[in-house]
Structure formats: structure tokens, C-alpha cells
């Protein structure tokens, strides 16, 4: 049996969750404006491939990240045009793009498979890294990881503390009312579909240039997009809670590695599956927390009540319903 060094474990969680956090925040922003971008899983792979290919050819990590962001925004743009302007089902377009981008990534990235490419260098922050416990967990990583931490606060501040964020949420909740107040719902939705896609693309770059460096078939980022989509719901469409969900998920994945050390007869893939039933269970609890007769039953059970309180959250009212101006 191996011992768990808690600090190393938590530092690994913070680093490993970085791309998931970015993708989850990007999707939260998009969904807050009322659009579901279901293409995440494919987008992450395609942008991961683009990031690796570009930085391999040019030797510049910055260009790699930029390329990934552009790819993410481009896929999101497709979702936006189809759903906002052509009136097609967001789910259908997103799903087709998920499969297509994944295949496109494998096809175009074929010649870059299993090559040794550039990686983001670790950049511990001086002074802060020497703080006991907190230092190694938060301040001994690389720039993308710090970026993911900053982004959590930034997304929350933007959504809930700025006039632009208010407009964004107004469009997601009640586009008609927003329209009456002189806001263009379609324009706003398109902007945040692009912004969300940009973050998802950068998340892909974080995979292929930092968290799971390199490209191949499979890359190792497969499935992350779907997890990010579930985490948005898990987080009740709140950026901080969604990010916490991403850390919980990364923690469960890390625990899977330890558990595998303890039970070597069970293949690793089984442990990687473990978070999914948990996610479904949480979604059921979230649904029940909105049911009145279930709440009554929970009334004299304080622990259940507090769990339900934490889990409560509701989707933007106009999520998935395209706005059509008269």
C-alpha cells in the first residue's frame, strides 16, 4: 500500500483540473447567454491538435495557444451561426460537430502523432511558493494553471459584477425583455458563444502542451468535453461552483490512480468511469431539491436538507430556445 501525500495530491488536482476548469467556465459563459455548445468534446481535441501542430512547426508556444483559441472560437462560431441565425437545433449541430471535430483532429494530426514537441515550462512564483501548504498546492505550477485559477474569479466578477455581465444574463433569462430594453439578444449570444469557444480551445491547448503533452490517437483528453458539459449543470450554472466541480472530478480521477495501486487486478479504465455514476446521482439530487414534496420530507433531516441546499441551482430560463425577433 502506498501512502498518500496530501499536498502532492492536491497540487496534482490543481494542475490536472486546469484544462477542465477552463472548458467548464467557457461553457458556463456560453450557456448563461442561452446557447448550449454541445461540441466541446470534439472542440477540445481539435484545438489540442492545432496547438501541438502549430507550436511544433513554429517552436512558439504562444502561437500554439493562439491557434487553439482560434479553432475553439471557429467551431463555436459554426454552432452560433447554425443555431442563432439558421434556426437549427443546437443539440443536433453540436453533436455532429463533436464527432466531426474529433475525426478531423485525428485525420489532420496523423503526421504529428507520437512526436516529442514543446511543452509549457513550470514557473513557480517566487516568495509565494515558499508559503507552507498553500505554496506547493497553488503557486508551484505553470502559467496556464495560474490562468485557470485567475479565470474562475474573473468569470464570476464579469457575470455578476459588471453591466456587460448583467446584459449577458438578461439575454439568457429573458431575451424578449432584454430586447425591449434595447439589447440585441442575437449579437450578445454570438459574442459569448465565441468567448466560450475561445476558452474551450485554450483548454485543448493546455492538454496537448501541458497537462497531457503531445498528440496521438487517443490523445488522452477524450471524454473531457462531456465531463465539462455535465459539470456546468453540476455547478448550477455558477462559475465558482462549476470550477469546484472540476476540482472534485480531478480529485476523483487522481484517487483512481491511487486506488489502482491498491487493487492492481482491476483495470484503470474502471476507475476512470467512477465519476460518471456519481455525476448522474448528483443530477438526480439536484432535480429532487426542486421538488416540493421531497423538500417537505427533508425538512426534519438537517443533513439531507443542507446537501440539497448546496445542490440547488437552475438553468438560464431561455437556455436552448433560440430568440426570434418579430
Amino acid at each position, binding site marked *: 500500500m502506498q501512502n498518500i501525500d496530501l499536498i502532492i495530491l492536491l497540487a496534482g488536482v490543481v494542475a490536472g483540473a486546469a484544462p477542465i476548469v477552463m472548458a467548464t467556465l467557457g461553457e458556463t459563459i456560453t450557456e448563461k447567454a442561452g446557447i448550449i455548445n*454541445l461540441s466541446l468534446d470534439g472542440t477540445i481535441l481539435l484545438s489540442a491538435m492545432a496547438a501541438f501542430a502549430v507550436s511544433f512547426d513554429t517552436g512558439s508556444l504562444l502561437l500554439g495557444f493562439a491557434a487553439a483559441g482560434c479553432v475553439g472560437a471557429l467551431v463555436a462560431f*459554426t454552432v452560433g451561426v*447554425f443555431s442563432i*441565425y*439558421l*434556426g*437549427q*437545433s443546437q*443539440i*443536433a*449541430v453540436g*453533436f*455532429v*460537430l463533436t*464527432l*466531426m471535430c*474529433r*475525426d*478531423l483532429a*485525428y*485525420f*489532420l494530426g*496523423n*503526421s504529428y502523432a507520437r512526436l516529442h514537441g514543446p511543452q509549457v515550462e513550470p514557473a513557480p512564483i517566487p516568495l509565494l511558493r515558499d508559503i507552507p501548504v498553500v505554496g506547493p498546492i497553488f503557486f508551484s505550477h505553470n502559467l496556464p494553471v495560474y490562468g485557470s485559477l485567475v479565470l474562475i474569479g474573473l468569470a464570476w466578477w464579469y457575470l455578476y459584477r459588471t453591466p456587460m455581465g448583467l446584459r449577458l444574463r438578461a439575454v439568457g433569462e429573458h431575451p424578449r425583455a432584454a430586447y425591449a430594453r434595447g439589447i440585441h439578444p442575437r449579437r450578445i449570444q454570438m459574442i459569448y458563444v465565441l468567448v466560450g469557444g475561445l476558452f474551450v480551445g485554450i483548454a485543448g491547448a493546455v492538454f496537448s502542451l501541458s497537462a497531457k503533452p503531445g498528440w496521438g*490517437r487517443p490523445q488522452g483528453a477524450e*471524454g473531457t468535453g*462531456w465531463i465539462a*458539459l*455535465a459539470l456546468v*449543470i453540476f455547478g448550477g450554472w455558477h462559475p465558482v461552483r462549476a470550477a469546484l466541480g472540476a476540482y472534485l472530478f480531478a480529485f476523483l480521477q487522481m484517487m483512481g490512480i491511487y486506488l489502482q495501486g491498491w487493487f492492481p*487486478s*482491476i*483495470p484503470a*479504465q*474502471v476507475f*476512470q*468511469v*467512477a465519476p*460518471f*455514476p456519481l*455525476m*448522474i446521482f448528483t*443530477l*438526480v439530487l*439536484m*432535480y*429532487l431539491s*426542486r421538488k416540493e414534496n421531497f423538500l417537505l420530507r427533508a425538512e426534519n433531516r438537517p443533513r439531507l436538507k443542507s446537501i440539497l441546499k448546496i445542490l440547488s441551482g437552475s438553468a438560464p430560463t431561455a437556455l436552448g430556445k433560440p430568440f426570434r425577433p418579430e
Partner: protein
Amino acid sequence: MKSEPVIMNDSAPAAARSRRVFRFFGEIGLTLSIVLIFAVGVLLLAGAPPFSAFYHLFKGSLGSGSKLGHVLNTWVPLTLCACGLLYTFRIGLWNIGVEGQVMVGAVFTTLILRTGMGQPFPNAFIGLALLAGGIGGGIWALATGYLKTRGGVNEIFAGLGMNFVAQGLILWLIFGPWKRPGVASMSGTELFPRELWLPTAGFLRLSPVGFTLTLFAVAVTAVLLRYARIGLNLRAIGGNPRAAYLFGLQPGRYMLLAMIFAGGFAGLAGGLQVSGIYHRLIPAISSNYGYLALLVVMLANYNVWAVPAVAFFFACLNVGSIQLPMVLQVDSSLAGVIQGTLVLAVLAVHGWRARSRKAGSS
């Protein structure tokens, strides 16, 4: 989105009709050009000669009898899954869990075939195994359905979660209780004895049982969805659940029914993969056919008669692309790129038509 029969009005001037025909072929031409331009662009980007890639796609799928047999063997699970999805789409459910339903069907079939090893009446066991496959897929779909109707979990996320769980189940079985004597590996469980293989016939190496079952599934689906009351009720609930409820239909019950149909067909597809193709359980037993079937149904515009043709075309692309890595050193995922582009182009043309019609009427 739903295909409405075009009412041919005899009194309409011939000019209007020819304009409609012209536009119909114009749209097809536009769709195909979008796909062709995109595919050529992608091939050039990957440094492959486009013309010879298309040639190899064709030669690799319809170039010989054994290739055609391979195509039909792919067509069978694809069409079965797509038929099942017609029920769930009709009621407005996105059954992404179809992939896991194929896998669990395969697991149930394997279970029965394992108990049938060395027993008399192997054919009875094969029949029982296929039936078990359908039941397994149905149970897995029913779980997702209950999560939707009772647990309030969106069927997309419930289905995806169940897919990952099914994949975990298969890996656990292959590496755990059903591991091959000696060493467990990703190549799957041990082969079944020959008498438990689904018999194949002719130079196509195609199983007549699987092929007949698939044709039967298409016919049953067509009758149920187009001419029976269940099809009407599913469409009524899919169109407006509240109104259907007031009309005395219970949406929850019909959702579960649609899920059972979808899961049953998908599970049967999984069972046929085990008993007819691989003769064992392998980790990639579903071969992504469930996900691909969703695209098939979308491209067929939710029309049951178009499903077999679209599935055949998709099967050709899948089989034709297998040899691409050898002859052109490009990845076989070109098939998926073309399939996705095709569906996207159709959606774009649809949206464009709806937009221009609205602009014309107002």
C-alpha cells in the same frame, strides 16, 4: 425539420412545379459541393491526393465481393441502431445512450453464449443469446429512461454517463471474470467454439440471420411509426407533451416505451456483433456505430425509408476508409469527416431554405 409530404397540387402551374424540382436538385447540388470542397480542402491540408483518396474510398467499399460483404456487415448494426433511434427522435428524446445500449446487448449475448459452450443445441443458444442482447439493451435504455422521467436527468447526460459505465463494465469483464485463460488483454475474451458462431452464407460472408432481422426491423419500424397508433402518439407527445397529456396520453410511459424499442434494437445490434462478427467480446464491440447511427437518422431526415440507404452509404465510407492508412498514409477518420460535413451541409441548406421562405412570405 420533420418531412412533410409535398402536396402536389394539380392546379398549380407547371412553371411552379418545375421551379420546385429545380430548387430540389439545386439544394442537393449545393450540399454535395459543400462536402466535396471541404473534403478536398482537408485532404490537401493533410498532404494527400484528393482524387486517389476518393478512388480508394470507392474501391475499398464496393470494389469486390468481400468488400461488399464487409459493407453489409457494417450496414446491419448501423441500420438496427438507426431504426431504434427513430422511436426516440419521434418523441423528442436525444438517445445518445445508444452506444452503451449496443455494448450491454453484446455483454448479455456473450453471457448466454458462454453458458452455451459445450452444451447440446448450439442453435438454440444462439437464438437465446440474440434475444438476451435485445433485452440487455432494452434494460440499459430503460435505466436512462427512468433517470429522465423520474430523476429529472436530461437524457443526453444520463445516456452519456451510462455509455461510460457500459464501457467500464466491458473492460472489467474482459480483464476480470471473463479473462482469457492465461493472460487478459485488450484483444478480448476467448473465441467461442465454431458451432456457436452465427452461420454465414455465400462469398459475401454475410449472416443471413442478421440481414433478415435488420430488414424485418426496418419493416416493423415503418409500420409502427407510420401506420399504427403508437407512431401517432409518439409524434403527438414529441410535438407538444402538455397537449398530449391533456388528451389522455402519458408522456412518461411513452418515453419509456420508445427507449425500450431503441435499446432493444441497439442491443440486438450488439448481440449480432458478438455472435456474427467477432465471436467474442472485445472492448470496442460497439465500434461507434451507435453515435454514427444518430448521424444516419439526421441525414435521413427522420424518415424510415431513407434510413437503409443512408446507412449503406455511411457503411461504404467506413469500410472504404479502412485501407487509407496503408495506401495513402492518412488516418481512416476521413470517413467521419465526410459524414459529419454531409450532415452539417444538409442542416445548413435546410436552415437557409427556411430562412429564405420566411423572408419571402413576410
